[in-house]
């Protein structure tokens, strides 16, 4: 999007025309994808996709509405944790007792996604497939070690979330595939914290920080640091994580994690913040959130 006005687009109408299908089943949806590939785009909540269609940054010839598919809208318990259907909304995540029990950090992240209406409309699958570095659910899913299930008529493949994003607005999803669910293992530790740093309370984030922490006898045995808006994709601060494993669980250690994390990101300046501020705030918030996670009574 160079100049919005260069193409004289408008957010008042969608001026491009497209076909529209409502598949009756997941099987039918996969067949449509198999037949048309990327010429048929899944539409779920639409809160990102419709803006892109208005702005003509994306041209679509055919949308298929997947929000009504029963196969995609469940949260269920598995041996490892949860399986979350692609069209499960932020609101579902916030109100699911299973999510609360297994991965409450995901409910917390969903509650930052964009206010009540967006919580009702936006889906976890849409959030991930949109491929935004600012995806609210991505940093917690990264540190939880989640996997996405990508299905096609040929079967399914399981991709770790870390490998799913390949760049801004880009993912490994193949033209014949649909993201059908997200598998989230239950973490070993209840120590976690999550925050979106924003200009005002309701906003796209400047920086998203999710952390998890496992400690044994005052020593960090494992940790996760997931970050959004600080690189072309949501990322894990793996160097920072590695640096503090085995270290004493002290504020100094957590501060060191923040320092390292701020060095391993590649933020940009945009209308929401500056690259410099994003580095400073990442350093501070990684430390703060690790401290918070550590202080959580478990």
């Amino acid at each position, binding site marked *: 999007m160079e*100049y*919005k*006005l260069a193409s004289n687009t408008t*957010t008042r109408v969608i001026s491009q025309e497209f076909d529209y299908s409502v598949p009756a089943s997941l099987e039918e949806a996969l067949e449509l994808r198999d037949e048309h590939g990327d010429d048929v785009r899944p539409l779920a909540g639409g809160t990102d996709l419709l803006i892109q269609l208005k*702005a003509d940054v994306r041209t679509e010839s055919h949308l298929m509405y997947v929000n009504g598919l029963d196969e995609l809208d469940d949260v269920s318990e598995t041996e490892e944790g949860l399986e979350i259907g692609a069209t499960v909304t932020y609101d579902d995540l916030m109100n699911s007792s299973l999510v609360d029990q297994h991965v409450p950090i995901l409910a917390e992240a969903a509650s930052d996604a964009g206010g009540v209406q967006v919580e009702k409309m936006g889906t976890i699958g849409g959030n991930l497939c949109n491929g935004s570095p600012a995806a609210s659910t991505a940093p917690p899913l990264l540190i939880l070690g989640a996997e996405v299930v990508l299905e096609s008529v040929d079967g399914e493949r399981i991709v770790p979330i870390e490998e799913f994003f390949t760049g801004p607005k880009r993912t490994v999803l193949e033209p014949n595939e649909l993201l059908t669910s997200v598998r989230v293992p239950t973490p070993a530790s209840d120590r976690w914290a999550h925050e979106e740093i924003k200009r005002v*309370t309701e906003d796209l984030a400047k920086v998203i920080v999710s952390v998890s922490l496992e400690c044994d006898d005052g020593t960090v045995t494992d940790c996760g640091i997931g970050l959004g808006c600080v690189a072309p994709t949501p990322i894990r601060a793996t160097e920072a994580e590695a640096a503090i494993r085995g270290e004493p669980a002290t504020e100094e250690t957590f501060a060191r994690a923040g320092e390292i994390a701020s060095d391993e990101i590649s933020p940009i300046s945009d*209308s*929401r913040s500056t690259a410099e*501020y994003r580095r400073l705030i990442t350093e501070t918030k990684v430390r703060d959130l690790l401290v918070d996670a550590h202080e959580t009574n478990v």
Partner: protein
Amino acid sequence: MPKNSKSFHAIGTDSPRKGGKAKVTGKAVYAPDVSLPGMWHGKVLRSPHPNATVVDIDTSEAEAMGAICITPDDVPDVKYNERTISVPDAIYRDNRVLTDRPRQVGEGIAAVAAETEEKAERALKAIDVTYEEHEPVIDPEFAVSDDAPAIHESIVRDGEVEPIENNIAVERDISVGDVEQGFAESDHVFEHSFETGRTYHAQLENKTTVCRPEPDGGITVWPTTQTVHNVRQLLGEIFDINLSKVNVKRLELGGSFGSSIQTNSVTPITVALAMAADKPVKIVSSREEDMYDHCRYPSKLDVKIGANDDGTLNAVEMDVLADVGSHNIQAFPYLGVVAGFTASLYDFEHLEFRGRAVYTNKAPACAMQGFGNPQATFAVECMIDAIAEELGIDQLELIRKNYVGEGDTFWGQGPTIKSVVKSCGVEELLDQGAEAIGWDERTPPGEKDGRYRRGIGMARGFHTSGTGGPTPGEAIDYSSALVKINEDGSVDVVSALQDHGGGTRSAGARIVAEALDVPIENVELSPTDSRNTAYDVATHATRGVYAGGAAMKKAAESVREQLLENASRLLEVPPDAISLEADTDEGIGRVFVEGVPDKELTVGEVAKRAELNNWGTMAAVESNRQVACPPAYAAQFVEVEVDMETGEIDILRTAIGNDSGTIVNPKLAAGQQHGGFYRGAGYALVEDTQYDENGAIDGNGLLTDYRMLTTMDLPSNDETETFFVETEEPSGPFGAKGLGEACINPTAAAVANAVYNATGVRFTDIPMTPEKIIGDLRAEYTDRVTGKPMVPAEDDD
């Protein structure tokens, strides 16, 4: 303590606003809601380049799609200024309906109309424009340099072509006394530079117009506007139509904040399209178009103040560089009021003001709530806090010693409008605000430590009630109203006065009810347009109640005389023997002779019998100019908490006080206080539109890029205290003064002073985003550097 002892039956009561039911049921009609039979939809082709010449426009493909297209060749070759409420000498004309010389991204080049908005949009995309691009001028400092290309070669003022040099749209120097002498006589001279942001109005209603060409060659227009009469006059001039055939309808207005004092750029484009299509045409701006249409004047202010050890302020010098953007809508009055607001805050004996307003290739700046006052008050009130600290005098004492108050000469609306202050509640505002916030428990910045630091700050200010004065001045300022008593005793008020949502018209109804002594429920406001009303300049400059209401009161008083005359004939006593009283329980106006029980009628009975007797309708139309524009004073106190590591500022508490004379609509008046504070806090902390080097708004140019404080970013209701000091303004209707803009003027300084009190760092560049302030805060926090407290620039001791 209220100074006003008169008891009112309509003024100051809390009955719901007129027209409010339509708003809460979604039935109120705003310009985007207007739909006419056979109406087509228009779209404007806007320049993607900040500075360019259109070499060629090819509309053939769009026309083949069935669209009607207009280009710069198809519109009248009239150079105008969209704001027409000043005298001709103060109007700088540099604009045109459509241009082949775009001077900003988003400027209108061509327009199309089609059966649906979607078809119009597709036709728009089919237009092929060839541009020759020129180097853009984005930075105002660069604009005035010799290296900068000329944005406008010349403009037209009062019929004369005037060249533009170094992109300077207006220069305005104003001098009172001898400032050098003032500084020489001062014990201390303080100076500092301030910078204010490019705030976007973000009124929720995007600028819209519907136009229907009429069979008689006239036009009927439904625009987004604060002034139907000025839209009418400008359209009459551009399209050369007698004003009697130009009818502009007054609609509900979805917020404005100054953005529609001028005739909006889509309005003449819509008219041109409708005339070309010979059909009704509607253009609703998208949000992204609207964001390139207008903003507040961003300004750099270099301020120098001379003061004595005892706190006497002697002299002020101010240099202002204002960025007007692509068109000079009102930079001349802007510079005049920045000087005037500064001069009227404190009793400076000497003042030297040098103002320059320069063109850049960005959206044009125009009035936005406070018009020059938020900028001036931010600079001056931050200085006052700093001076108080340096001199070791409490800030409130320094204010008390120097403010312009009762009996002082005041020229808030610029040097041509001077009047003497007759009502002033500043002392009580300071006392009550200090009490509410706990001013006496405030500790200095040096005593704060830790990461999260709290501070209390305050600032004072005022706004003028309109732009009236004893002499004509630069701006036109009068209102008109027709009031008539219907045959059942109910009352129609017919006025072009616009209401942006503040309750101006509702207040007018209360004033009429009060003046006629009939219950407020019996008074209604008629739908109006430019054809069925006499002139009203605009609802702007905080003049709605004070000036617009005064015209209604004048008409109502004239009708009251007629009522007394008719009653005198019916009751067979002299008019002077007759009393009027609103019976709010029965919902009637009583007309009676005190102490004579059988001499009593209702207003409705008088009206009906007047009709049956063929005495004519009791009605009057009056125009009224107020001969002053008295200051409506304000004081705001805030407590903030600053995160020294992240630069995040949280407003914890506020006390907002105003002296607006008599309060007409109490709940709506409190709403003005809350709203002014909210927008002022946004001005201080977050709101800005930055442009990149290509002349485009940073980001995607969507509302996503322009954030405003939310419900969660403001103090809770319990932590928001509002209060009024009710003085009685002798020139105001029932003692009322203005209110709206006074509520935003002090906010940014109050917040900045609170941040200083919390942190010991004085920020002079707003908005104070975390990105801008984090470096200085961390320096203070870590003691690596001593921070940047304001210090005397020169010390004559």
